[in-house]
């Protein structure tokens, strides 16, 4: 059995909601879940809640996990969809008020090199759908097809959302809004 798959005994114990099994899975995957949640929501409070919900519901959800497939990929999908649901249905809490757009570092009207901090702030300006594809592509490094599978959209829709998101980022970072 591949290391990427959840071992049957661990899966069964997880299904039963055994604390030790949850602890093992948490130790192995919590960083990944939290990272994706944070990137998608842009808020550590929301990321906390998404991670909390993912692990809280995992014993029931794991019954629908296909043991032939890598567990990390499945869990990533669950995290992405949970985060999206949160972004669409809940009010996003901002722990730190974003700087007004005008206070982003002034950019020339030319395309410029983007740094990490600027990107983190600019991502908050995107809608949930656009933000998701950018994070999955640029941060998580997934292919178009992997993103399509995760989000339940087709590959062309991924391409369209991605180029729209990047154009929007370009305008934001250039001050062209």
């Amino acid at each position, binding site marked *: 059995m591949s290391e990427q798959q959840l071992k*049957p005994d661990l899966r*069964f114990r997880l299904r039963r909601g055994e*604390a030790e099994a949850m602890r093992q899975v948490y130790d192995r995957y919590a960083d990944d879940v939290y990272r994706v949640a*944070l990137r998608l929501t842009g808020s*550590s409070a929301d990321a906390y809640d998404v991670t909390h919900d993912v692990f*809280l519901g995992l014993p029931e959800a794991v019954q629908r996990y296909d043991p032939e497939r890598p567990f990390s990929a499945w869990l990533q999908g*669950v995290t992405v969809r949970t985060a999206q649901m949160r972004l669409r249905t809940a009010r996003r809490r901002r722990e730190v008020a974003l700087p007004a757009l005008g206070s982003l570092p002034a950019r020339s009207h030319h395309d410029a090199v983007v740094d990490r901090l600027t990107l983190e702030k600019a991502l908050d300006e995107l809608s949930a759908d656009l933000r998701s594809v950018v994070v999955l592509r640029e941060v998580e490094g997934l292919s178009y097809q992997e993103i*399509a599978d995760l989000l339940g959209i087709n590959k062309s829709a991924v391409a369209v959302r991605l180029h729209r998101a990047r154009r929007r*980022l370009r305008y934001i970072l250039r001050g062209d809004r």
Partner: protein
Amino acid sequence: MRRLRHPSWRELNRLADDELNSGPRRMALEHVAGCSRCGRRMSFLASLREAGREMRHPSPPKDLLDDVLRSRNEGGRVILPASPPPARSRRKLPAAAAGFVLAGLAGLATILLVSEAGAGASEIWFDPPDPVPGEQVRVTYRPGNLLADESSLRLRVRFRAPDSEPPRATLGKHHDIVLMPDGAGRYTGTLQLPGDFAFGLSVVEDMEGDRVDDRVGRLWSLRAHMVDGLPSLGALRQEFMVLQSMDWPAAGRAIAEMYTLYPDHAEGWSLQLAHDDVTALPDEAAADLAKHREIFRKLHMQLLGARPDVDEAAGMARYATVLGDEDALQYWSERLESQDPYHRFIVNRRVAALAADPEQAESYLESLWSAEGLRTEMVYRRGFQFAGRAGDAEAVRRWALRGLPLSDDHIWARNAALALVAHPQTRARGLAEIRRLLAHLDEESIAERPLHSSREDVRLDSRRLGRDLHVLLGEELLTVGEVRAAIAELDAAEGLGGWNPKLYRVRFEARLLEGDTLAALADFHRLDADPIYSRQSVDSLYRRIPARSPGELAAGRAKAHRELAERLLAEQSIPRPLPDAELLTATGAPRSLDELLAKRPTVLVFWDRRVFESDVEELNRAGDLLSGGSGQLLWVTSEPSSRSLLAFKRASNLDLPSYHDPDSNLATALGEWRLRAYYVIDRAGSIRARVHSLMEAVRHVEVLELESRDTVLSSGGPDPPSPDEMAGCGPLDPPFLGRSFSRPHDSVSEVCMRPIKLVSRSAIVFSLLLLTPVTFSGDRGFEDNLACSREARPNCKREIDSVCTAGSAPVWNYYTIEEL
């Protein structure tokens, strides 16, 4: 040459993501290399990726896991989007636009649906997928290979209402619609949901009912939803009721949805507690109980100041029952009774309280029957049961007459009719009901058949049920002294094929009463030849037949053996391959099915803990019977291995290894979604039969083994002893003939067969003539008898062997091997 036109933003994006085809990619690269504007854009895209990769990777706060575990302990649950949403749009269009768009996109939609479902699999879509009761639902069916190219198809549905009782003979009200082809390889129709719809299950079949697509036994289900899109509590309740008799883990998931979506309703919590009561270990159960007491307390406080409806009050009363909280039970029962004095919970509780005094219980039910609007099937069933327990034959017949027009369950109807047959005044009515039932079993009456049954299934089931009905009727008639009529019924049962020891037993009595001992002897031989019929019973019957010589007895048994084999193998003998599958042992180690079968004849049993407890004795007995020979019992369960399952096995004295099919791969490959199923697998690993009871499967294996020996050892060997050789031996004593040996079902013939089994394993042991110490260890009586016979009458060695084998090839072939 450098490309003049600037690539579009989209093209640059695809170039940066390496998603452009080679031609456009080469041209774009050539352009970017010489164009500063496009070069800057590419640099931006590259820096975006670089910044993305550099984004910090924070860890979650340290107390997050503790928070999660605390939430779970407090009963917190979340339903996660574990599967991606389907990749198709569900936006609604204005009606006029929708017509054009649907017409134009029909072909494209088909392609999308096919790719979504996967090749070869059939699928159904309900639109809307989350209907409310009374709504019209558009059904689209994409057939697999089974039902492709039909001019029309039929969707058969069973509807359940929110308060439907647990499913018994059928799953609920029956409804059909015709599905017509849409020209794109799919079939469509419109299903009108009833106003009290809660849950539905369906199959698709051809118009003749010969081929049924039941989604490999799972059926297609549809839930009622509330206007806010959540599945209704009634839908989840009914889903649980259906699943608990089909798939124990899935039933557990339905419970989880109930208490997650309706945490303020006691029903889901009480079901969870009852579920955990079976599956949890004692220490876990104690922790669960504490958790549930707290939940109950919160709900109780919450509802005190409110006005709970009947459902909520009943849920609290049930929760209090499962918790064992007598005070709370009393309180909520009274509140429920004040709202609905004849609520099912109240009636059941009252009946349970009166159960020790069946007359009083029957009298209470009689009063209910007299009340307006309470002539329900539940009251009838309880009344019929308690009248029987009270031994009041008149009351039994009274309830039977009430129930016949009310119940659609053929087992209850059969019992009621048989109760009427037992009395001269009602016999004609009872017989008429039995005849009606027999006619109803006919293959023409297919409309009400179970969802997964084809017409052929109905025909086979009808024969089996018809046989049982004739035998029961024969038994009743014999009890009231109508011997000839009883024999006629029993002969009719025999005419329907199959092998039925009960029939032979009843007819044995009837024929002795009639004075036809020769005919009775034939039934005696059948019972003697049956590999699992109780040897004590055969002993007792032996004493009631006229003395026969060993040769006659052996010949009669051998003939009955052949009949047994013919009848069993003629009915379900078409071998088909067993699918490859991997099961998990109790420790989680994967084992292939081939490895587990190990070329041994096997009874493969699909059972789950939910229906297990009362049948453990039978399972152990079957395991003993099979392991006494070369066969084995393989218990497969969809439940994962757990400490609680092991504890359950220990507590139940269930001495049988379990093999786990947690994802139901094997069950699905065999089309088994219901829990109990029995497969007979031969040594070659082929399925030889799927039978209806465990002991039937054991009998089948034994017969296959006898047949196999006949085939393997079919030639050579000396002739059976002549009458001259037999002279002077005289008949053996009955105790010798019918002794109980090391296996419960050992008979002389089977004991004698044992050396044949050993021959194939080791020729060395055949240095002894009869292998007595090996084969008959622990049975001194048999050895003494054998030794005595040998010493006192040398000829009787031959005689004993002839008893074992005369007329049956294996024993004489045994001599052949021995002489080699």
